């Protein structure tokens, strides 16, 4: 493998004099470092300004570090190519879903030695911390936010359909009847669901949990795929009823995360399920009208096992970076992602800049650290909160009362990918046999789980 690569490089270097530059030398804490960091793509100017203001602050405090923002957002269709190509920013974010795999494959840098010296290193919420830890408990990836799935709804469409926007659905039967009413009276999709780029599997798993199911069963070292279960069949039946009996799911069945956000913000969707903290990106990327927005807890079936799928975001450092960059990267993670969760000054400063540039402050989220710190932080920033908190009460009042269930752990994204066509088939083919589809997906998923 390497020999041909050397030839390749040699040929090119001699013929075209492509110069390769290498960094190295002794570790000097004041040596200039250039650090590429992730910034969400497609932001409104205000959000970009807020980001740049934070960058300027950071560079002032760390004169030797030059921050270069690079547009990046985790996306199932391009992430692997970027990972393989080494084109990710030095600091980037991934969903909890991917943390374990990246650590096991050593595809990110081990920053645990630096992370453990952060003042709040011991304070992470236990289950949240797990998402970023290797088998031996070392924190390779730092959790920066956590969410539980929630039901987002359009208050304006609710009103137009004659529904009370202050009393959103609390059961799937109510979701179904509300969706039907919205579709009939407004002509828009009553309820819509993501189906592409692995989000179909993510959502099916979410609903499976909400109905009391689980998609994998871990016993010791072996994992058993449990996709073809009564709960999952019930989920598909519910979707099928809304789609084919009520015709309340609109006309687009190929949504991914960004696509459904956009249609929701454009007022074309009555309700959909996505992470509880979505308000910020709906506002910054899709120009959502705040008055339209409503959010409530995900309706759970009445069994003990029913729970809300929870996840979150990890900040990680690209593989193969040298020590100065690694140090700068952890500083940035501390400064940009975490200090605003743990320190009053930083929290206030962040909230102030964010609010001044017209971006959302105070959207609901789950605590990365403990509950009391979370509540305290909410107090610190209370004067800058600019989101319609009253419209979020149906969610914020009850979000802590719901049992949170983490995502499946084995080959998670691949199993999600297997479920995408299942939900697509149910939504686009009236005669789709959901049992057969689930059985086939389960067999393939088991192959994936056995591979390890």
């Amino acid at each position, binding site marked *: *493998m390497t020999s*041909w690569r050397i*030839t*390749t490089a040699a*040929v*090119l270097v001699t*013929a*075209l004099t492509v110069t390769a530059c290498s960094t190295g030398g002794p570790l000097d804490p004041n040596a200039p470092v250039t650090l590429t960091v992730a910034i969400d793509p497609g932001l409104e100017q205000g959000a970009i300004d807020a980001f740049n203001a934070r960058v300027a602050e950071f560079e002032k405090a760390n004169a030797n570090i030059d921050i270069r923002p690079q547009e990046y957002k985790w996306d*199932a*269709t*391009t*992430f*692997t*190519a970027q*990972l*393989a190509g080494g084109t990710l920013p030095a600091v980037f974010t991934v969903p909890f879903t*991917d943390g374990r*795999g*990246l650590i096991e*494959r*050593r*595809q990110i840098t081990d920053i645990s030695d630096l992370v453990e010296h952060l003042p709040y290193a011991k304070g992470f919420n236990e289950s949240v911390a797990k998402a970023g830890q290797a088998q031996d408990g070392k924190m390779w990836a730092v959790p920066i936010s956590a969410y539980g799935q929630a039901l987002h709804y359009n208050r304006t469409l609710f009103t137009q359909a004659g529904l009370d926007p202050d009393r959103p659905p609390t059961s799937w039967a109510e979701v179904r009847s509300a969706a039907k009413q919205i579709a009939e009276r407004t*002509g828009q999709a009553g309820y819509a669901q993501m*189906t*592409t*780029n*692995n989000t179909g599997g993510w959502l099916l798993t979410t609903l499976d949990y909400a109905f009391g199911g689980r998609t994998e069963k871990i016993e010791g070292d072996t994992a058993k795929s449990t996709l073809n279960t009564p709960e999952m069949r019930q989920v598909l039946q519910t979707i099928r009823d809304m789609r084919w009996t009520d015709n309340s799911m*609109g*006309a*687009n*069945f*190929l949504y*991914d995360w960004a696509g459904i956000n956009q249609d929701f913000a454009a007022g074309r969707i009555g309700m959909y399920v996505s992470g509880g903290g979505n308000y910020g990106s709906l506002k910054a990327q899709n120009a959502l009208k705040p008055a339209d927005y409503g959010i409530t807890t995900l309706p759970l079936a009445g069994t003990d096992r029913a729970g809300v799928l929870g996840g979150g975001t990890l900040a990680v450092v690209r*593989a193969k970076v040298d020590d100065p960059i690694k140090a700068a990267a952890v500083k940035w993670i501390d400064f940009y992602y975490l200090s605003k969760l743990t320190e009053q000054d930083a929290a206030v400063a962040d909230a102030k800049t964010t609010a001044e540039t017209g971006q959302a402050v105070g959207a609901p989220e789950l605590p990365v650290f403990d509950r009391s710190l979370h509540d305290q932080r909410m107090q610190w920033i209370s004067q800058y909160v600019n989101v319609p908190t009253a419209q979020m009460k149906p969610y914020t009042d009850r979000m802590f009362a719901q049992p949170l269930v983490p995502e499946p752990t084995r080959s998670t*994204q*691949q199993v999600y*990918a297997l479920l*995408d*066509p*299942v939900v*697509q*088939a149910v*939504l*686009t*083919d009236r005669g*789709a046999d959901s049992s057969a589809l689930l059985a*086939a997906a389960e067999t*393939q998923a088991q192959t994936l789980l056995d591979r390890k």
Partner: protein
Amino acid sequence: MRGGGLSALLFLMPMLVVFTVFSWIPIGQTVLMSLQQTNLVTDPVFVGFDNFRTVLKDPLLWTAVRNTLWFAFLALIIGYPAPLVLAVLMNEVRKLRGLYSALAYLPVVVPPVVAVLLWKFFYDAGPHGMFNTVLGWFGFEPVSWLQDASIAMVSLVVEATWAAAGGTVIIYLAALTRVPPELYEAAELDGASVWRKVWHVTLPQLRGVLLITFILQIVGTAQVFLEPFLFTGGGPANQTTTILLLIYNYAFATSLGGDYGAATALSLMLAVVLAVLSALYFRLTRSWSTS
């Protein structure tokens, strides 16, 4: 002036470098990688024909093959005759020919990605979608252009035809001007009708071009990527997943570590089929252009 020696070698240098690095080595590398398991992080391991076996056992492969054949077939019945009919008709136009050609060619000028994104909007499945609005005028129900497994592929082919037909029309128009007028005159002496002239003179005279566009179309459709990737992402339920999309998915889209072995194995298998077609095409262009 034989020999050339050093100067010939110098002149060959750019080509040798570029081909070595970006063609010859990668071709060898494809063969090598198809026999290996590699994730670019750990060292590659030779696994014999395992990758080929994995690919052949993947139920998605046969879906992709079927979809690609279906796309090729639809492109043949929708996309193949359309430019020919247009060209033959346009060739009879005497006034404003430039306008006709320009109009036919305009879609080719629209950047392909823009065309797909625009048509994606046209294909909106709601009753207010562009095409559905038109159908509504005639009292038809809205159609789920891209969201219905049975017609999603047809929608893709219609857009692809729209985007490409203009180029083919121009080729046919050029070929039509090379049909010797004497042949028509001879047919007229025999009292041939318009239709008979088209059938017995025009089409046989275009035979060479028709065969070439036919093979080009097959080779092209076997590698279709843009339309399924941007329109549907292979959905609904993998009904528009084509072979190239599958290769892309093997290599780049499955989150966490692409399966480069499977991707290169499938590439090789596709290459063998396409190489046969290209060889055929090459022979034909040679005989056609020298005749």
